[in-house]
Structures are given as C-alpha cells and as structure tokens.
C-alpha cells in the first residue's frame, strides 16, 4: 500500500517534470545532437542535392590556417578579458564584502549586478557611441587635456576587449563576493590577533578561500566570451573577425551550415573541456 502510494507520488512528480524537460530535450539537447549530425554532412540535405557523410568539415578546420588562427584569437581575447575582469572585479568584491556594511552594501551590489542583467546588445552599442572617432570620449578628453585628443579606439581589438569586460565584469564581482562573504570572520580576527597585517591576511586567507569563487567567475566569463560574435562585430569592425563571427557567417551569410556546425562543435569541445577542468571549483562555489 505504502509502496503503491510512493509509486503514485513518483508518477505525479514525473508528470510535473515532463513538460520542462521535454521542452529542454526538444529545444536544446536534440538541436545539439542534430548539429553533430549536420557537421558530418557534405551538403545541406535539401531535396535534389547530393549529400553523404564526411569528415571534410573538420578537415577544413585543420587544413586552413585561418580557422585555427581565429580560434586562437578568440581564446586569447577571452583570456585577456577574463584576466582583466578578475583584476578589476576582485577589489570591488573585496570592498563590498569586507568594507561596506548594511543597506548601502545591498544597494551597491544591486547597482553592480543591474547592468549585467540588462540588455547586452544595447550596452555594447552604447560603447560604439562613446568610442567613435570624435565621439564623446574624445570630446571629453579634449576638453580636459591640452590639444585635440584622438584615442582611435573605435574598431580595434582594444575596443572589443573594453566592451567585453564591461559586459562580464559583474559576473566576477558577484561570484567573488559570494565566496568572500562566506569566509568566517573569526579566521580573520585570529590572524589579526596573531599580528598579521592586512596584506598578509589578504594573501594568506582571503585570496585562497575566495579562489573557488574566482575560478567560477573566470569560467563564467571565459566561456561566453570565447563564443562571442556580436561584441567583436559591433566594436571591432574589420578588426573584429573572430571564431564566433566566422561561425555566424556560415549560418547567415555563406550558408555553409555543415561547416558552421563543425566549427561550432570544435568551439563547444574546447568550451566543454574548460568547463570539465573547472567543474570541481564550480561545484564548490555554485552548489
């Protein structure tokens, strides 16, 4: 009797879970599988077209020097952006977690996170206004400094990096803050009582204990940045060709979907490798 009740409860639970997970299956997992299949085709399986299974799309990646170079460029930009986010974000998290107290801490944290949850495209667009030649930033600097200042940042890789740091630094601040806040205050008091200076406390206690949070933040920045295409397009102009924009082109301009699928899969493999390597730290800080 109890057994039957339990089974009925499990059945009910499965019925409640089914819509959400079927939806995910249909809209995420099957598409990823379909993409794997497409990446092995010689042409789009349209009526009247010849197609067969082939590894040619993956070979195209290896044979052309351009694709690996662009993948490398994307990963390099992602690494630079991640590093800058860590360097710029950690002190903010530190101040929020250990210096500022009470209601103003809550308000400031919200203020930091808010842009992150707002429209990413529009934020990147706002940088194009700021950075354009003779734009607001040039005008502002010219007003303060002697002479005409031309930063010449528009459509450079630097502009892409600035825009991406702007987009993702709140992630690092948030994950580092959560890690720092969880540190037991008595540890710090003990260290202080034993005569440790502030820098020593930072280096020997705060940094090591916040490390899982920093790693989580780094991964959460690195992965989407490696696959970004909108930011490089809008901020990088002709300098903004990355692995992401090449994949975009295969789908919206060149219509070589099988090649695009193969390139996407190569990117996915790299990203999954990184996620897997960082998963213990991720689990510790998010779980």
């Amino acid at each position, binding site marked *: 009797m109890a057994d039957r009740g339990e089974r009925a409860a499990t059945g009910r639970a499965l019925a409640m879970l089914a819509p959400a997970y079927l939806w995910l299956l249909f*809209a995420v997992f099957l598409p990823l599988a379909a993409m794997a299949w497409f990446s092995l085709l010689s042409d789009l399986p349209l009526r009247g077209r010849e197609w067969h299974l082939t590894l040619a799309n993956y070979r195209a990646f290896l044979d052309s020097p351009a694709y690996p170079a662009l993948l490398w460029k994307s990963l390099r930009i992602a690494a630079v952006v991640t590093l800058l986010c860590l360097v710029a974000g950690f002190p903010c998290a530190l101040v929020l977690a250990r210096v500022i107290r009470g209601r103003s801490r809550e308000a400031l944290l919200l203020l930091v996170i808010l842009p992150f949850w707002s429209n990413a495209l529009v934020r990147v667009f706002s940088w194009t206004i700021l950075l354009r030649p003779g734009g607001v930033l040039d005008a502002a600097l010219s007003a303060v400094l002697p002479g005409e200042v031309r930063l010449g940042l528009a459509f450079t890789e630097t502009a892409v990096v600035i825009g991406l740091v702007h987009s993702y630094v709140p992630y690092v601040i948030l994950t580092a803050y959560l890690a720092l806040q969880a540190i037991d205050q008595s540890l710090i008091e003990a260290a202080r009582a034993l005569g440790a200076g502030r820098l020593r406390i930072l280096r020997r206690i705060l940094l090591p204990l916040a490390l899982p949070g920093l790693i989580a933040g780094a991964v959460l920045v690195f992965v989407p940045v490696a696959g970004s295409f909108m930011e490089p397009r809008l901020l990088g102009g002709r300098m903004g060709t990355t692995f992401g924009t090449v994949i975009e082109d295969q789908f919206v301009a060149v219509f070589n979907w099988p090649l695009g699928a193969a390139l996407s899969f190569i990117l996915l493999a790299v990203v999954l490798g990184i996620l897997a390597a960082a998963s213990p730290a991720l689990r510790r800080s998010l779980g």
Partner: protein
Amino acid sequence: MSAAPLALSGRLWLGLMLVFLYAPILVMAAMSLNASPFYQLPFEASTRWYAKLWTNREILAAAWRSVWIALAVAAIATLIGSMAAIALWRHAVPGRRLLQALLFPPIAVPWLITGTAMLVFFFGIGLDRGSPAVILGHVALALPYVIVVVTARLQGFDPTLEEAARSLGARPLTVTLRITLPFLAPGIVAAALFAFAVSFDQFVVSYFLARPGDTTLPVLIYTAIRKGFTPEINAISTIVILVSMVLMLLVARLARFGGER
C-alpha cells in the same frame, strides 16, 4: 588607523567601476535626447527622435513582437518551470542530481552554439524561422532561471505545512493550490519577470531563429547598427535598457536574491 587608506582606495576603485559600468549607458541616454543625428556636440536638447519612433513602423512592429513573445515565454516558462521546481523539491525523484545538472547546458553553452544548433534542428524538422521558433528557443533559455528562482523560494518553505493539509484530508491538487502556491507567489512572480527579461533582452538566439523582416527589437537594433544607422536607434535602445533594468530591479526586490543566478 592604517586601514583607512586601503579601505578608501578600495571604495574609490568601486566608484570608478560604477562609472565604467554606467557612463556609456548614460551617455547613450543623453545622446538620444540630442538634436544632432551624428552625436555632434554641443548638446542641444530635443525629443525629436522619440517623436520619430512613433512613426517608424518597423521599430514599432518589432517592439510589439518582442513584447508579446516575451509575454508568451514568461507564461510558458513560469508554468512548466515552477511545476518542475516543485516536483524536484517535493519528491525524491530518481536521478534528481542529473536533472539538476541538465539545467546547466542551456545557460553555460555559448548562445552562438545553442542558437545555431536550434536553427539547424528546427530546419531539419520543417519548422521555419519565425516567432514560434523564437518562443521555443527562448522558453528553453528561460526555464533554468525559472527553476532556480522558484527553488530558492522553496528552500524557505516548511514541508510540514503540506503534510498537515494532507493529513487533514486535502487532495494533492488542493494542497498545491491552497498551501504551496500562495507561499511561492513572490518567487513565481520574480521568475516570470526574469523569464520575460531573458526573452526581451535575448539577441543571439532570436537572431538565428527570427524571420528576417519580422524580427524582435534587439535583432532590429543590431541590423540597424550594422547597416549604418538611424538616430531613432538611440531612443529605442534607451527605452529597451530602461525596461530591462526596471524589470530586474523588480525581480531583485521580489526574490531578495543578492543577484544569484
């Protein structure tokens, strides 16, 4: 105290970071009120671009489409996501950890990959680009967030309340409607707003799934920026970012989550 300079420079750094985060947005908002179409200075105040928005049919159509797609996404994702969250929390479902882990890919896999994969798969099964495909994709992206937000609210729920109702003879549906849902309401509203925002702000997936010509607002803005440019884009962008920030402020108030995912 020796602590003061260090703490002060820390505060200063945080202040600089806030300037870095908000300055571009504020400049864009200011420029949307500048009479010059090419951001020329000196600044001359004007609301002409906002007035022009009302006559730009393409933008209005895209805005309307964005809103109703986001409403549909919020309704669907909140309903099936809340159901899943309650089930995961109430029952020791076999494979629960796996089910929770499966929520990660839609968030963690770059949208470029998810979006193109959806395009390929939907094409393969004969579902053309267009609003139904966009909704299908957006709901999948919003679901994990809904489940996480509702689950966070459930953590504060006392399961003995449900047991008490059940032992007094309430049927499972009654328990859910009369006990569980009222408690969950703020979390569910927050989740719905969140889902709305995920859809309303989503660019990448819409870009691959929307039919060219009837796109959503972010896709229209992207195309306009790349084509060269109409100054109304400033105005509509300012409205978009205002809407999305207000939405997230509401979510933060309701869910009281210091920004957790």
